[in-house]
């Protein structure tokens, strides 16, 4: 049986990985910003977290 080198093996049929479009990246970044803003405005300013923050860091 003729041996074939790695070099001779046929390439697997895997499509080239496409980069997400700029619109998708911008949308994801925007959503992360909004989520962080919401967490900051809702949770960090709520009583229990504000008290913990005061106790630990002030």
């Amino acid at each position, binding site marked *: 049986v003729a041996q074939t080198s790695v070099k001779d093996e046929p390439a697997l049929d895997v499509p080239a990985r496409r980069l*997400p479009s700029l619109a998708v990246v911008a*949308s*994801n970044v*925007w959503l*992360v910003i*909004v*989520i962080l*803003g919401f967490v900051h405005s809702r949770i960090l300013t709520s009583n229990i977290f504000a008290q913990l923050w005061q106790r630990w860091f002030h």
Partner: protein
Amino acid sequence: MVLAVISALLVTFLVPLLAFAPGLALTRRATEGLLPSERIAIAAAFGLGLLGVVLFTVGLASFNRASLGAVVLVMAVVWFLPGVRRELAQTLRAIERPRWPWATALGISLGFLLLSGLAEPVGTMGHDGISYHLQGPRIWLREGRIVPMPDFSLTAFPVSVEAIFGTLMAFSNHRAPCAIGAIYVALLLVQTHGLARWVGASSGWSLAAACTVVTMPVVVVQSTTAFVDVPYAVYALSAVRVALLCTSPAGIMVGGAFIGFAMGTKYTGLPLAFATVGVALVAAFRRNDQTALRWLAGSVCVGSLLALPFYLRNYLVLGSPIYPPPVALYDHLDVRYFPRAAAVAMEAYVYERGYGFGHGPLDLLLVPWRFSMFPGTFHGAGGIGIVPLGLGPIGWWVARKRAGMGELTVWSLCVGLVWFLTQQEARFVQVLFVIGAVLGALGANWLSSRSRLGLVLSVLVTGVSIVYGASTVVKATGPASLGPAALSALSPSRAEMRRSEIPFRRAFEALNAAKDVGRVLIVDPKAPPYYLDHPHTKIVGMYGETPFDGPVTLARLADAGVTHVFETDKHRAPPWLLPHLELLFAADGARVSRIHTGDARPGNAQGVDHPLPPSQGALPNP
């Protein structure tokens, strides 16, 4: 209590059902091409809007069970037209069945809202439902026709929905007007789903948009407490849907009628009308559509005619079509019961309450962010979540080239700008939150199909909004606390606990049980006459109204039929009246006395005037 709940439940469904037939008959041409569920919702909204206008117009002459029942039955006759029932059957058969998780969530939410609406309405004068949305119909039913309430100017707002409230009260009890709020919310949710499908969102994400709306505290917290903001949003959204997005001649005409209903529901319907007509005009010119222009003129006439009774009544009876009037109108009109000083104080109050973060250009740009993050500044009751802010712009970008999207965008910007410049009160622009949720659904749909991270973030944004909103709604406290309200509709002990929120309760109950009571003079401007079964008047109203339109004397009180005086610890009767009062009972910080004209001091007995100091324009705490 059980009978009261059952009666309210039956009437709440029966009246809209009877009014549905004319709605379907008049809108079926206009809604061709829409989703079947959306057609049903728009027909129901049209029926209710038309019912409100007719009830008000008839109610000016007679507002009792006989006349109100006759109006409802005349509208119900349309059910016997064969085409209507056939159309309804076909439309119902064509409705696609929603996926069960979403349908279950929406069903539970609406059931919860309906249950909370079946609770007995309670609250102080700071609760709009108690102070005027329910108070007005209560007085109309007692007087047998729609009359102004000079001691509370806000009862002169456009009252098409309150006319329906009065009808529900006439055939059931005071729970029904609150419960019908759940039906209006259901109509809004169906429209949300339909609009989301129209912009291109999938069925699942469209249902998610409806779930987002039903968990927006701004939308639902006051929806079953006899507020009229959700009905207004339903009419406004219907107008946009059929007039701007369908643009058929029938659609334009029906859209005009919906604008008329909106103008007959809230004054914010006036700028809404200008925005809608303006956008439709520009769009028709750009398309060079002469037919649409002609039909648009007709729709303006229809809308104006439907709104006319409310504004004409105010002009003829109270001296100003918009009442309480803007200060600028005082130079041109002879306004009754509301002094200029009170109007100045009212404008200052509205400006302060609706200031938000400011009215500058930077504030305008930042308002979507600030509204989503800090809704309390806009009296937002917990806000709207982050779907409109996070996913809405993405959805708009995706659908920006869609036919009709330009009109929807410009219309939304106009409505938002008017809100920003006038009074930044969150619940006034519920229709924009719906549009934001709809665009958010499309944004999520688009992003989740293109990126795995986008799918995660879309689900996260939607999930956080729904969970946060639902928990806020359930946990809300005060008069708008839906959780305790829902429990009180089921449990007598909870209902009794809820009644403890009635101010001066024992005093009102004793006065209601007393005999030989004519008209009651309520001295405290902030004491709610809603709990009083007898006619009443006040010396000065909560916003500085002067029901006597001049100095108050013993003789004028006698002419008005005043026999009893209701004082509170904070507001005692004026000194000149005290010698004429015989204390009957005192409880819960209130005192009830009978007036004895015979025991008057000589000066009073001879009818010498004792004018009160001018109104200070006392205003409630926001």
